[in-house]
């Protein structure tokens, strides 16, 4: 038995309904080492670590600590086993001070600021942190909040630290500071796991890399013996042939011109940075990228839902005239005759009203029509029946609440409605997420059909295999920037995987 092993997970499986989030995963976490857990979105990294932190229970498999079987039923159990997790969304009480947050839930701790402060100071000195224990959380920067989280975990005597995407919200300088702290903790014999998908950080900080792909464990390699290229291959896997029909539309023409599009969120973080591209009528433009690289903001800023800081968005009419869309609300955009349809990621939140039936949901697009104060129910009813028939939606009636339909049928209702508005541009965000194979293909065929009608389709997806087989061109986003636009017929999965993690892709990485 290697005494260097802190935690061993054997055959861990976790299911959410029908979805298998983790499929018999084996993982070893060693003391005095930094392990990177690498994988694409939805590969099950956070789920796996949540089982160590006591948030979820594994359905199958066993966790061992120093050779002994271990059951972690709650976050409290996890602390008692010396496991501390720093979640992506910090678990801090805003109106409390740092010190209050740090001692929260500790049984034998008196609320005596002096002792807490001196203990906090000791930890800070040891690993070179700087925090003010009497500062309120809401007055802190993101990086300071993270420091409080780390100190909180250390204060509880954790020997195994799990950090979920710790650098996602940090500036490069703050990241460097965090890495220094992590190295100090490693030197102190702590076991550290960082969940990440940033290859350069993996290379910079970790001793070993464990790779997950689609819920499966791919393997663990020593960082010094691997390369970003090899890791990308492990992360995205080899191309799978899906046999999606991809005809070519002959007379493609520019439909939407986006130039230098820049968006900033409420907290001042740049979400989109100088995005420039042209979407053509008669093509499917795929958008690839790690989750949160600006996909949502891109679609929402084009449709007028997200404020644009800089840049232009121009719709090209059939006559070749350009219409500016910046600063218009969705209603104004529709009034100017720009046919745009949007299938949002959050189907029941943004796309449909869950408690209404198909007819009611069809009406959401036409409620302004009808005479006087009365609604026109007839044509939405007809449209609902048409979508029901043509897309083979499984529902007892057109008035059955869509919330109670399966995910695939909900998506068919939404896509059906959007297509029925005869759009010139059809934007879809993760349209096949959570759908089974058959429904997914039904959606692919619908999108291809629209493309062959000359519609410009923008498809934000996460499965690179699908993007490569369905789309004509793929725009790759990386941290809000356009990493590149490639021809989907000739591009490879590795190439795109690389562009997702490094702006500019392979060439840029070679220069570094």
């Amino acid at each position: 038995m290697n005494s260097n092993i802190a935690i061993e997970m054997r055959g861990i499986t976790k299911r959410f309904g029908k979805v298998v989030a983790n499929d018999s995963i084996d993982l070893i976490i060693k003391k005095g080492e930094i392990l990177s857990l690498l994988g694409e979105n939805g590969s099950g990294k956070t789920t796996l670590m949540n089982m160590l932190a006591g948030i979820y229970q594994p359905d199958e498999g066993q966790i061992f600590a120093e050779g002994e079987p271990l059951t972690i039923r709650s976050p409290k159990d996890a602390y008692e086993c010396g496991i501390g997790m720093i979640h992506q969304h910090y678990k801090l009480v805003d109106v409390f001070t740092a010190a209050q947050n740090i001692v929260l839930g500790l049984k034998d701790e008196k609320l005596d600021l002096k002792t807490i402060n001196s203990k906090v100071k000791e930890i800070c000195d040891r690993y070179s942190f700087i925090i003010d224990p009497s500062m309120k959380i809401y007055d802190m920067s993101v990086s300071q909040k993270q420091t409080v989280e780390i100190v909180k975990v250390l204060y509880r005597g954790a020997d195994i630290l799990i950090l979920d995407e710790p650098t996602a919200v940090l500036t490069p300088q703050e990241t460097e500071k965090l890495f220094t702290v992590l190295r100090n903790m490693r030197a102190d014999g702590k076991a550290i796991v960082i969940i990440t998908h940033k290859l350069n950080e993996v290379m910079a900080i970790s001793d070993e890399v464990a790779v997950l792909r689609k819920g499966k464990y791919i393997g663990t390699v020593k960082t010094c013996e691997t390369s970003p290229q090899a890791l990308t291959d492990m992360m995205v896997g080899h191309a799978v042939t899906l046999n999606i029909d991809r005809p070519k539309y002959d007379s493609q023409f520019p439909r939407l011109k986006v130039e230098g599009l820049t968006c900033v969120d409420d907290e001042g973080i740049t979400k989109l940075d100088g995005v420039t591209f042209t979407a053509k009528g008669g093509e499917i433009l795929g958008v690839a990228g790690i989750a949160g690289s600006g996909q949502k903001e891109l679609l929402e800023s084009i449709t007028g839902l997200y404020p644009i800081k800089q840049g232009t968005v121009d719709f090209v009419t059939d006559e070749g005239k350009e219409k500016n869309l910046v600063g218009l609300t969705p209603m104004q955009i529709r009034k100017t005759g720009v046919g745009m349809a949007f299938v949002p990621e959050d189907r029941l939140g943004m796309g449909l009203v869950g408690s209404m039936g198909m007819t009611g949901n069809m009406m959401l697009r036409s409620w302004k029509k009808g005479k006087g104060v009365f609604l026109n129910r007839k044509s939405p009813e007809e449209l609902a029946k048409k979508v029901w028939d043509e897309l083979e939606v499984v529902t007892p009636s057109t008035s059955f609440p869509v919330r109670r339909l399966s995910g695939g049928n909900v998506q068919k209702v939404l896509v059906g409605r959007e297509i029925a508005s005869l759009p010139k541009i059809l934007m879809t965000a993760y349209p096949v997420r959570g759908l089974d194979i058959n429904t997914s293909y039904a959606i692919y065929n619908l999108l291809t059909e629209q493309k062959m009608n000359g519609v410009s389709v923008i498809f934000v997806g996460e499965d690179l295999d699908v993007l490569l087989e369905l789309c004509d061109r793929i725009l790759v986003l990386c941290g809000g920037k356009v990493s590149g636009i490639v021809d989907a017929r000739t591009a490879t999965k590795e190439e795109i995987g690389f562009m997702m993690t490094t702006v500019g892709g392979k060439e840029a990485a070679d220069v570094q």
Partner: protein
Amino acid sequence: MSALIALVVAAVTFGTVLMFGTLGEILTEKSGNLNLGVEGIMYMGGAFGLAGAFYYEKIVGEAASSGFVAIILAILAAFLAGAVASAIYGFITITLRANQNVTGLALTIFGTGIGQFTGEFMRVKEGGFVALSNHLKDAFSSTIFPDFLKNIPVIGKMLFSHNFFFYLALILALAMHFFFSRTKTGLYLRAVGESPSTADAAGINTTKYKYLATIIGGGISAIGGMVYIVTTAGCVWNHSGLSGVGWLAVALVIFCMWRPLNAIWGSVLFGALMIMYLRVRIIFIPTEIYKILPYVVTVIVLVISSMRNNKEKQPPASLGVNYFREER
């Protein structure tokens, strides 16, 4: 001057009722549970509190009854009624995770009904009139300070002449303030109301805290209903007197910004606003205008506090939201 003193005394009497209702609801809301059933809870507290004292007196006889025991029994009966009602609310929202607003409103209807039924049932059974003897009435409105304090001009009347329940509420408010700001349990309870996932991750039993705060809070609110019946209503069952008091308490929680110390002067102020139409009458102004004043003041306070955007003066961050650990 004497009119002002009389106004203050009357305001404090009615304010005491509100203070119990508000303090109970503050405790509940600090755990993140928005219990809109206060109206029903206070009704139940009124009916059961009176029943406790009434049947005690009936069983032992008027001569043998002790005022002290009657007060204790009334408080206990009211507290238990409120606690049971809140436990139902707690089970539905905390364990079954049903919508808090709907459950609270249902509790208001349920509690009002139970309170009315109990009160009316007693009234009919006892021959159309449920009232305590004068001996107990005096006990309920007795003060605890000696006469020489009460006889100090102006101050004596304003500070020392109120009934026993006012000072009890005062102590309760101070104790709650101490509990929230100085004790570990209070800190943990606030953490549960602010961010249950944080509290859970820190190893705090969120379910236990939510249940205890909701049940004890409901019990305290119910005492308010009882206090109304034995003071303002003169120890007589009155089926419409309590209507609206619970809602006023809910509004007062917001007005106080979830702080027990603010509840002290806030409830006296609201008490004054509620009885102004009796004492400070201005011709041409209908009494209804007076009666909406507390709500108008609450709205103004809400608007100002949200404009100032002070992070400290906000409702508990997860108020009204049920917590489930595995939610994704």
